[in-house]
């Protein structure tokens, strides 16, 4: 679970990030200007467990000030999750239920790191490489779930990312493609309820 949350915040950070020849500090400065985020996504799972990749779709909402993130699947199943500060809820059939995580402390710490783009802390766990069209995060210690995370920003609008690919140790990977991303749109509080 904590790897998943780590990834989610990594993704959120990446949405705020700008590509190009910028330094990590410049990314951190840019993220401060992004307060809210809206996007739709397509999720492709390439798993050795399955004969064919499977696809799902949904949307996400993020409010930095309220420290809330809603990740909602709409197709083929209606489910998702909500993060409120340091609490995580599973959403199923419109009902939310708190997710208990034994590594709650680590998750809370991770959240703070990613939300504030604390590169000093990130560098303790990941080797971060900036290239022309991608940002690569590789865990410094072997992970059971994450081998590498690659973020592909939009060439035309560096505040928006097109894709995120999470590679797992066994070769499985998940690919998220984002469309219709809005930076700093107005998000009503009620949507997180």
């Amino acid at each position, binding site marked *: 679970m904590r790897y998943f949350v780590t990834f989610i915040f990594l993704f959120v950070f990446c949405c705020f990030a700008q590509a190009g020849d910028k330094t990590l500090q410049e990314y951190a400065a840019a993220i401060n200007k992004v307060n809210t985020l809206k996007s739709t996504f397509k999720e492709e799972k390439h798993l050795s467990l399955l004969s064919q990749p499977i696809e799902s779709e949904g949307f996400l909402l993020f409010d930095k000030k309220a420290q809330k993130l809603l990740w909602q699947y709409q197709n083929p199943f209606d*489910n998702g999750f909500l993060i409120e500060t340091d609490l995580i809820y599973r959403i199923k059939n419109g009902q939310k239920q708190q997710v208990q*995580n034994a590594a709650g402390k680590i998750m809370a710490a991770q959240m703070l790191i990613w939300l504030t783009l604390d590169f000093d802390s990130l560098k303790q766990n990941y080797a971060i490489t900036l290239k022309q069209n991608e940002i690569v995060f590789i865990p410094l210690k072997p992970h059971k779930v994450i081998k590498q995370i690659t973020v592909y920003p939009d060439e035309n609008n560096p505040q928006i990312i097109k894709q995120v690919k999470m590679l797992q140790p066994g070769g499985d990977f998940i690919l998220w493609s984002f469309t219709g991303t809005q930076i700093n749109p107005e998000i009503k509080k009620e949507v997180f309820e």
Partner: protein
Amino acid sequence: MNFIRKHAKLIFLFAAAIICGGLFFYLPVQENILALIPQNIKTEVELFQQSPLSKKLIVITEGQTLAQAAAAAQQVKEKLLESGYIKTLNLPEENIISLMLNALPERFSQQDNNLAQAKLSAENLSKQFDIYKQELFSFESMFAAQKIAADPFGLSQILFDKWAVLGKSTQTQYKDGFISDKSGTVLAALYDLKQDTSDLAFAKQIQTFFDNLRPKLPKCSRVFFMGGLRYTLENVSVIKKNLFIVSIAAFMLLGAIFLFFFRTKRALLIYLLPFIVIMPAAFITQIIFGGISGITLAFGSVVAGLSVDYAVYVYFALAAKNKDKQQALKQISKHLWLNFLTSALCFSALIFSSVEVFKQIAVFALTALSLALFAALKIFPQYFNCSKTQKQSDGIKIKNLPFKAAFTFLFILLAFGIWGIYGTVLSKGLDSLNSASAAFARDKQIAEKLFSSDKSALLFALGKTQDEALLNNEVLSQILPEPLAASTIFVSGKTKSENLSRWAEFWNKEQISSAKELLEEQAIKTGFNPAAFDGFFTWLNDTLESKNKANSADFSAFYNPLISLSNGSYAVINIVPDTEFYQRAAQDGKGIFISSNYLQKQLTANVKKEALLVVFLAVLFNFIAVLFMFKSLKKSLFCFLPVICGACLLFALLAFFRIEINLFGLIFLPLLVGLGIDYAIFQLMKYHSAGQNTQALYPQQALLAAGLSTLAGFGVLVLAGHNVLFIMGLCALLGIGGSIFAAVFILPAFLERYL
């Protein structure tokens, strides 16, 4: 040099007291509840102390809503983990499926055999794969994929269900991972502390931690902690609060007695006597028992009161005018030896008790009284040997009551006392030995709603070895309608071996082949890759060829029902409903059933029995002693008159004001016997000396000064809010007060009439 030679004995005594005091502080003061428990229920109490809650830090958070309470509870948990005060529970989160699967073969019972068979049916597997598909589309898919590949048939669920039954046996509700009340606005979490819960310094650290944390918690939420640490803090806090008041009151009263009866510098020695005798007595008790209880030390104030009496009697005897001092000392010595004998016999009776603290008190008191007698007869006389000593109190004359009035008083006291004995209630349980503030009482009430001990009990299976305890637990489990959850997860070597054979038999070649076929068919039908499940069959083969021994699961890191007892044996703890059925089953299965209610009943009954034994022996020993001394049945019976009156007044007023007496009140009873008899002996000696030249040795003010000093030193504890101190003070005030009253006013009338 002359000064040293002149006061050598006194200096030696002071030096000995100081050395013993130093050694005493070097040695540990031990406080173990088992030392307060009668022998025949010690095992039960020791086992009860091992209750799953007993050594935990219980953190309770309240909020106006579940979300507020949950947020606060989560925050507290994180801060506690950060602080390092609690042990981290290392749940193997990512490998939990592997852990459960590896644990299954050794726990594969006949019932599990049937469950596994059902899981291997085509219908069940089809349902299972529908669930898998949904999981793969959820946000938790990355974990689901690993789980599905490792355990396609969902066999690990068999063990998860066993754990669920174990959790359910505690009869608590869970919300958001915390133990919850019905509304969900009060949540509790149990944590294992890194340090001993009885440590005061650590308790203070935890309190500071919570004090600092409170302002940082979400609004409308509140947090507090319970458990052994909170009790330690409460007791110390209440004792500290009362100590000042009690000390001031005792000082003022003793000062008043001194001013009224003595008013000489030399008489100050009388009040130094307790310091001289208590330290060596405490040190010797520590040496004999390898430690000393705080209760024994608290009892020191009683012994202090008694020791003062000897010096008071010597002081007044030597202060008598126109009296040969050597003759007076010789005469009073006989009286003091008799006093010592009666008190010593009372305390000796405590040695026959099975309660260790009673034995400690006996040794402590006998040592202190011996020293006090020695000091009063051998050291102090040279300081009291001055006819100018007696001043203000010379003129005290107390008229004896007429016989009719004395008889009426006695009759009323007896009637009232008999009613009181039947009406006095003995505090149940050990709670009465603790004291609490209003805030603590409120918090405790909230905690008790969450952990209702009225509904559940503990069932123990014992064994000389761990394996024997586990085996006996399984035997016990078999005679119950529902198996004990712990017996299904923590299994004996014999059962382990049987389960492994069952597992091997279940997964025969035919079964494996059929399972493979079924899985392949289902995988293809639902879009899964059949090759992804090869790992499961590799693992299965390893279990059958005993290759996974190294991976054999050990759950004791996060729950261990197996405990070791002080006698070297072991016990398995089970939480069961508090019903007579389980109580009977425990007897049939050679287990031990303990519930809060059962233990309270046992404790009350046993403490009563112990108290009766001790009082009976104290009365018997003293009766023989006074009969031997006075050689008169009538006089011997009169010696008990103040005792009876004191006891009657005590029980009557306890019953009238509905004050529950606790264990410490009962400890007081043999002391009351000793003190009451002392006062009676004084009056008898005085009566005998009437008209003789020895009468001056027994001035009424000597009895009053001795009795009032005891009351002042001991009775002021009634001002304390602490349960133990209060009940000791109350018993002193009523019991000793009643004895003094009877000795001064009632007894003389009877002596005049019947002797």
